[in-house]
């Protein structure tokens, strides 16, 4: 029978606890990932082809955001045609009846195979379903595969800057000095355009009214939330991107036409990239984020809504390149603190779970002992001084560091 779980002996527990306390009092940190919000930093973007190809730039070269840095060709679409069944012949005889052999080019609707009966009196043709090359004639299945012409695939630089590293046959890393802000969630892929502030304050809701005709081709920045009408109007007006604090999940589903189930985004076929900086619901954009974006009103930016929250978080990003600052000048000035340094008293944080969701503050204490929280779970907590003056205790798992 299954035996009941027994506890360690009293002495073993005592020894263990003593070691735990000693160890924990010497170091009271844990690893908590945070969102980046930097006024000036070095941004490096590695741009790779999905399959090997040709790299078109060289190390040290200056590139613009639209510069094509690598190119390859992906195999064209494939069409299948069961020639044996169309011609009414045995499958092992398929090759014999082919007018076009493997490797030969063929045009759409061109005769591909021919079967003659009654001394050539009756002819039956199989026609090519698409233009391309005959890739395979199978005498096992009677199937013929036509592959369309190769499709070129290009990767651009995404951000202006210099080529810092080349990966032969794969791509390159582009480097620039830039302002860099991470959002919490986004949809839509890479887009470039100039920033346009449309809300007066971080708590303003972005409505359709605020979207004037001049916003075409721009990346508009709102405050607390974008309404459904505002998103619709932005699409109609040709807005390239939208950055807001929060979003109602219904508006997200209405924009996409389906509900998102898994937080892996970036490949949606949508006309504008949407980035939220705080979370779902009506949440004011963090004032610092808002002010930082305001500082660059009218500047060119590259944004990407791609979000992947799985085993290493990829957050959406807003990059505002600063061509006037050579990245070399920033090297060495950047914080050397590794991410695993973690939370320490004084670390600026944002609370990311109810009941203090969205509140900003600084870590005031990192208690050693596990504490029992409202759910009755015993967890590692921290005490924080919120900017509104409240002193709160929250699980360490429910805060994120703000890296500035």
């Amino acid at each position, binding site marked *: *029978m*299954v035996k*009941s*779980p*027994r506890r*360690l*002996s009293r002495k073993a527990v005592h020894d*263990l606890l003593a*070691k*735990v306390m*000693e*160890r924990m009092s010497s170091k009271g940190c844990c*690893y908590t990932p945070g969102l980046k919000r930097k006024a000036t930093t070095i941004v490096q973007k590695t741009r790779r*082809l*999905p*399959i*090997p190809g040709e790299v078109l730039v060289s190390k040290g070269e200056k590139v613009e955001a639209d510069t094509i840095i690598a190119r390859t060709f992906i195999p064209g*679409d*494939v069409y*299948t045609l069961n020639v044996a069944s169309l011609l009414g012949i045995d*499958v092992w005889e398929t090759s014999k009846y082919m007018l076009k052999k493997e490797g030969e080019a063929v045009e759409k609707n061109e005769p591909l195979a021919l079967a003659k009966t009654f001394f050539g009196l009756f002819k039956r043709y199989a026609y090519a379903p698409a233009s391309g090359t005959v*890739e*395979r004639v*199978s005498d*096992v*299945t009677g199937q013929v*595969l036509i592959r369309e012409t190769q499709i070129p695939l290009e990767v651009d630089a995404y951000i202006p800057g210099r080529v810092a590293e080349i990966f032969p046959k794969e791509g390159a890393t582009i480097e620039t000095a830039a302002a860099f802000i991470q959002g*919490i*969630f986004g949809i839509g892929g890479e887009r470039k355009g100039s920033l346009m502030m449309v809300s007066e304050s971080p708590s303003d809701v972005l409505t359709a009214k605020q979207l004037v005709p001049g916003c075409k081709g721009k990346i508009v920045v709102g405050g607390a939330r974008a309404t459904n009408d505002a998103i619709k109007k932005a699409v109609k007006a040709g807005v390239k991107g939208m950055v807001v604090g929060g979003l*109602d*999940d219904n508006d*997200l589903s209405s924009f996409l036409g389906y509900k*998102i*189930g*898994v*937080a892996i985004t970036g490949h949606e076929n949508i006309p504008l990239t949407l980035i939220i900086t705080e*979370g*779902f619901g009506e949440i004011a954009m963090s004032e610092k984020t808002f002010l930082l974006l305001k500082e660059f009103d009218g500047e060119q930016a590259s944004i990407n809504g791609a*979000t*992947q*929250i*799985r*085993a*290493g*978080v*990829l957050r959406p990003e807003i990059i505002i390149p600063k061509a006037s600052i050579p990245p070399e000048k920033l090297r060495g000035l950047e914080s050397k603190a590794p991410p*695993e340094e973690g939370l320490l008293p004084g670390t600026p944080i944002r609370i*990311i*779970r*109810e*009941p203090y969701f969205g509140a900003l503050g600084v870590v005031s204490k990192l208690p050693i002992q596990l504490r029992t929280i*409202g*759910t*009755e*779970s015993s967890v590692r907590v921290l005490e924080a001084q919120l900017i509104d003056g409240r002193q709160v205790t*929250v*699980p360490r*798992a*429910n805060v*994120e560091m703000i890296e500035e």
Partner: protein
Amino acid sequence: MAKQAKPQHDVASSRFLANPENLDTILATDCGSTTSKARFFKRLDGKYRFVASGEAPTTVEAPFEDVTLGVRNAIREVEELTGHKFLDQNRIITPRLSVDEGVDLYVTTSSAGGGLQMMVAGVVKSMTAESAERAALGAGAIVMDVIAVDDGRRPYEKIERIRYLRPDMILLAGGTDGGTITHVVETAELIEAAKPRPRLGVNFELPIVFAGNKNARPAIKRALGTIFALEVVDNLRPVLELENTEPARNVIDEQFMEHVMSHAPGYDKLMKWTPIPIMPTPAGEGRMFQAIAETYGINVIGVGLGGATTNVYSIYESKFVRTVSANLGMSYSICNVLKEAGTKNLTRWIPFDLKEEDLRNRLYNKMIRPTTIPQEIEDLVIEHAVAREALRLGFEHHRLLARPLRGVQRRRTIADIFEQRAFEETYIDMLQIDLIAGTGGLLSHAPRRAQSALMLIDGFLPVGVTRLAQDSVFMMPHLGVLSTVHPKAAMEIFEKDCLVKIGACIAPKGVGKAGLKSAMEVTVRFNDGSVIDETVEFGAMKRIPLKEGEKAQVDISPFKGGDIGRGPGKKGTATVEGGAVGIILDARGRPLGFADTDTERKQKLVEWLKALDAYPEKLYTIC
């Protein structure tokens, strides 16, 4: 066929494998989709015991792209808790240097980066394709799609789908040995035309395992042999009456290590740290559920409720089936549970007022910040509601695959005709299930065991007399991989520190009359001679405390038509074992019904929660 060199494993630990009796300290990790979990085991007074655990976010994908960072962070937490030093600058210290420095053995499982993602193909959807799916799932894979000649898609649609998916590996089956080869070769030609690229590694060849008609091998080699890493194994359906998934499963395991894992970010390092192959997390969990069934000779349903997936295992009359429901999880795929189950099915488990949009926004916020934990009781109840639905959906998926082989001629018995039993239905009869056991962070971390009990009961709806158990601090995958090299250590830890008995659930199958005062009458005879009589109203639950390690004799009298395994309306007696919760009398009926009005539903729900003392009193003040 291009094969990569086998990974170099840690040699120091290998020495201990030759002499397991010298093994004193073991470190095991599981690289989960969201969190990496380290568990430290030690031999204390001659017995292997669990000592401490540490957890940290997994770092297999961008921006870190090195799984060992997360593993090191999790191990560092164990170091902080125990003072035992495991890490030097580049690796895990093996062999052990002193009592508190280094370990004798390091082992790991992984489901990070989406685990092993496979596409399977067969000829007939309900026959060879289904067998191939079972083989892939049995190896711990997530099945991204099942391609079959009769799946209703046109060839170009299948080609597009294969190209788009970018699986880690493809399993191709089809045809019985000596039968027609046309259809399976046709499918191979579609794969050849699609030229799918592997998900990881730009330059390596995608592994394809062929387990179909042996006569088709030359044609398959011609179609696939030059552009893919093709492995040919015995047919998994050599004749229609037989399913032989073992050879395919073994080769999938090998290919997973040699081709897939070696290209995942940081795994080259991780593979060198451990002397034994990295095992997919579901494979590790599955081994332990199998061990329970084999050790005690019982029918078991197991579940691993993870951050990204829900893995269900059944060992029924010695038949083992594993399913992995991708994207039914409690962290970054939590909104997929909402999407699949629907808001109404989730809110039926919530006993307080909550606007639909509030529920949805909370879950979306959990999805984008998956490592956060509920701080207040409302949030905990919401997560538990999602868990019930994830379990229900995961089990529904499981039942679709745990069914008799198709394509086999059967003689219907009189009983089959009377019961109108269709062969398409699952062979799992819930009345024959002896134990339901759960693992996964949410179940293991539930503050009260009664919460886990209710989640398992509401998710699986057991009938008859069913024991309930759970993993104490989520270590089943760790013990599963450990059992491959040191079964004794794995079982010792499993019995003493891993498996927590919750109790027994007694629930009649069927539906009684609403308002029936005596839907179930029980007499419980305890070992000390005391006796308790209980009567449960239809639609209600009751709890009778019975401590872990204690047993009791229970006479059960269900309502008219209610079945506890002796036939409708018939009385029965069972010996039940105690646990953290005890004996749970569930007279809510099966299938489970809910009141028509919202007020009544909430009231009933509160009654159930109170009956089991599942949540603190403050919950009921907001209901």
